[in-house]
């Protein structure tokens, strides 16, 4: 078919016309090959202008449309819609920016006119190589993958399921509940953990909208908001399970700092030194006893173990250390308890009182530095320095030591970050999109974080974040809403691809797979976002970026050099 290119130059009122000789632009392009009409208009984006364009497309039977006007960032879509209405494929249109990047920045009218000519010629030159591209619509999936079955994951799952979303809850251990299922009671009210947790766990297991996988890990997540394809694998099985979701929630929780890294606390070398978690377990399972079978007479609880090494405060250690004093007093009323802290962190409306009431029960709080646990002749003691004008060294004899180690992110965090393509901060926790504007979303649209996966926090704070995530998902991922994937994506030519896989290594979205049978790379049209990286990297010219093909951009370069 003979090409019929129409060129329309916009005056934009005085905005362009004042600094560009429009007629000279028209003269310069009207003789070009394929150009059948070149006209000016006062305001192309006005209703009148759009009607004018539509009429012209129809009257001249235009096959291609070039407009020289403002930035494509402003009106490309406007004119693409005009094309559609006039029955012209909107990708057979090109907009030359002679306003923002020409008339407005070049002082001299002569020079601005020449530049406008160059830009308009470039658009004409390029458009001959345009091909029509078709828009696609795909269904969005309203279902959700939740990774990690602690309190945060449970809460998010329940809320989402209550709105009839199908939730896939993936937990790597043999049961859901997370760290909290090890605790007998919770600060500050000292209510039994089971009051809160057990009911929720039962609700999850009974809920028909929630499919809970235990002993399972996520192997692969591909795709984007509304369309993720997930593969999970159970420890005991060889086969993978595959399903589709629209959003992903990461609630992989916490780990504890390993105190063997700091030999001064005697952990692993002295017999009655426990971590906080070991102490919780001892208390939950039965009686608080020393290794020799007797109840402790004097207990030292050491806060902030690893805080200096990690470089942050873990927010809940002071509080659970106070909780431990309650556990001890409840079981062994005569026990002596000394808490060694560096800064006491009891923020919030009810925690200060919790601390004061515990103190009144006869618990010593000692602000100490350079803490060290030693043993001589079967007697353990905590040695420390007191900060004052004349620093003093003191010690207390104890028969049990409990360490409150810093909270770290889950040991699987880097693996998860890699699988999902989300970021971890220097501290190891997942990074939120924005501290204030996007505190539970991540840099990847459709992937959310809640609970200790985001940073150290208490159960109530973890629940708040889980509820926020559910709100974000329910309000943005609407069942039945169609998604329009990017049209200007890359494609790979079977004939030219040499199978070097360079493109695969540079694609930020894992959108290219290798066809082992044909020995070539293939672009997944749904996953490709059209960045064009693969086509810049491909050594054989096989990968081509639609609408920004080598040829199309080459034409623009050549016009720039005329």
């Amino acid at each position, binding site marked *: 078919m003979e090409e019929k290119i129409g060129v329309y130059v916009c005056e934009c009122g005085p905005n362009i016309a004042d600094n560009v000789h429009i007629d000279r632009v028209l003269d310069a392009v009207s003789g070009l090959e394929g150009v059948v009409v070149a006209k000016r208009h006062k305001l192309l984006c006005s209703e009148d202008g759009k009607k004018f364009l539509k009429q012209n497309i129809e009257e001249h039977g235009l096959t291609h449309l070039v407009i020289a006007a403002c930035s494509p960032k*402003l009106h490309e879509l406007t004119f693409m819609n005009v094309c559609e209405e006039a029955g012209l494929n909107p990708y057979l249109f090109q907009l030359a920016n002679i306003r923002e990047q*020409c008339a407005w920045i070049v002082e001299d009218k002569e020079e601005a006119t020449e530049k406008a000519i160059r830009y308009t010629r470039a658009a004409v030159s390029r458009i001959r190589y345009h091909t029509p591209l078709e828009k696609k619509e795909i269904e969005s999936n309203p279902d959700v993958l939740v990774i990690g079955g602690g309190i945060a994951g449970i809460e998010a799952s329940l809320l989402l399921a209550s709105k009839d979303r199908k939730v896939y809850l993936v937990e790597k251990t043999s049961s859901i509940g997370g760290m909290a299922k090890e605790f007998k009671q919770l600060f500050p009210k000292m209510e039994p953990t089971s009051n809160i947790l057990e009911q929720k766990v039962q609700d999850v297991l009974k809920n028909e909208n929630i499919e809970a996988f235990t002993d399972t890990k996520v192997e692969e997540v591909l795709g984007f908001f509304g369309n993720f394809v997930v593969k999970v694998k159970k420890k005991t099985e060889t086969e993978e399970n595959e399903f589709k979701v629209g959003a992903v929630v990461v609630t992989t929780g916490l780990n504890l700092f390993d105190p063997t890294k700091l030999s001064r606390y005697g952990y692993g070398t002295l017999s009655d030194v426990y971590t906080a978690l070991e102490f919780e377990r001892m208390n939950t399972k039965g009686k608080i006893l020393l290794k020799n079978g007797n109840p402790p007479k004097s207990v030292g609880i050491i806060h902030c173990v690893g805080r200096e090494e990690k470089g942050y405060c873990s927010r809940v250690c002071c509080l659970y250390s106070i909780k431990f004093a309650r556990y001890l007093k409840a079981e062994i009323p005569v026990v002596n308890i000394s808490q060694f802290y560096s800064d006491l962190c009891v923020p919030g409306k009810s925690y200060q009182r919790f601390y004061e009431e515990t103190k009144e029960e006869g618990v010593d709080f000692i602000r100490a530095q350079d803490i060290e646990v030693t043993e001589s002749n079967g007697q353990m003691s905590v040695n420390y320095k007191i900060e004052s004008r004349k620093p003093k060294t003191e010690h207390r004899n104890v028969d049990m030591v409990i360490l409150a180690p810093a909270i770290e992110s889950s040991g699987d965090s880097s693996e998860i970050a890699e699988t999902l393509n989300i970021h971890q901060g220097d501290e190891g926790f997942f990074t939120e999109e924005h501290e204030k504007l996007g505190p539970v979303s991540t840099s990847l649209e459709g992937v959310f974080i809640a609970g200790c996966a985001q940073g150290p926090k208490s159960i109530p704070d973890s629940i708040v974040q889980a509820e926020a995530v559910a709100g974000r998902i329910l309000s943005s991922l609407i069942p039945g809403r169609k998604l329009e994937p990017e049209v200007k994506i890359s494609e790979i030519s079977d004939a030219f691809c040499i199978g070097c896989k360079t493109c695969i290594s540079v694609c930020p979205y894992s959108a290219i797979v290798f066809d082992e049978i044909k020995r070539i790379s293939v672009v997944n049209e749904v996953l490709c976002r*059209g960045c*064009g990286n693969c086509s810049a990297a491909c050594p054989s010219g096989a990968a081509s970026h639609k609408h920004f093909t*080598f040829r199309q951009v080459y034409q623009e*370069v050549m016009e720039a050099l005329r």
Partner: protein
Amino acid sequence: MKGEFTPKIVGFLCNWCSYAGADLAGTSKLKMPPSVSSIRVMCSGRVDPVLVATAFLRGADGVLVAGCHPGDCHYEKGNYYARRRFAILKKVMETLGLESERLRLSWVSASEGPRFQEVITEFTEKIKKLGPNPVKEKTSL
């Protein structure tokens, strides 16, 4: 003004940051030399080094590749790839007898209109000092 050397510079601008920064310079009416012809690409990582080399062989006096600041690429890593590719291309240029300063990589965000003006003005001055592309003669046989 006759006889003065007006350089021809090709400017590849990434859609999300630098092209928007250039538009902002326009809406703020910041004046700059007309020497740079901008070409919109989706990402600085889309800029094919072969195309840049072609531009030089066809007589470009300078090529500017502008993208988002490191860490801000709309496609996460495109600008890192661009940086790597063009570091290599600069070495190749030297062996061809082209000063590597004729290729410039700059980071300009969508809110940096004045910076865009600065980059264009400075780069144009630089190329004027270097003079016309020395391989143009050879390849125009």
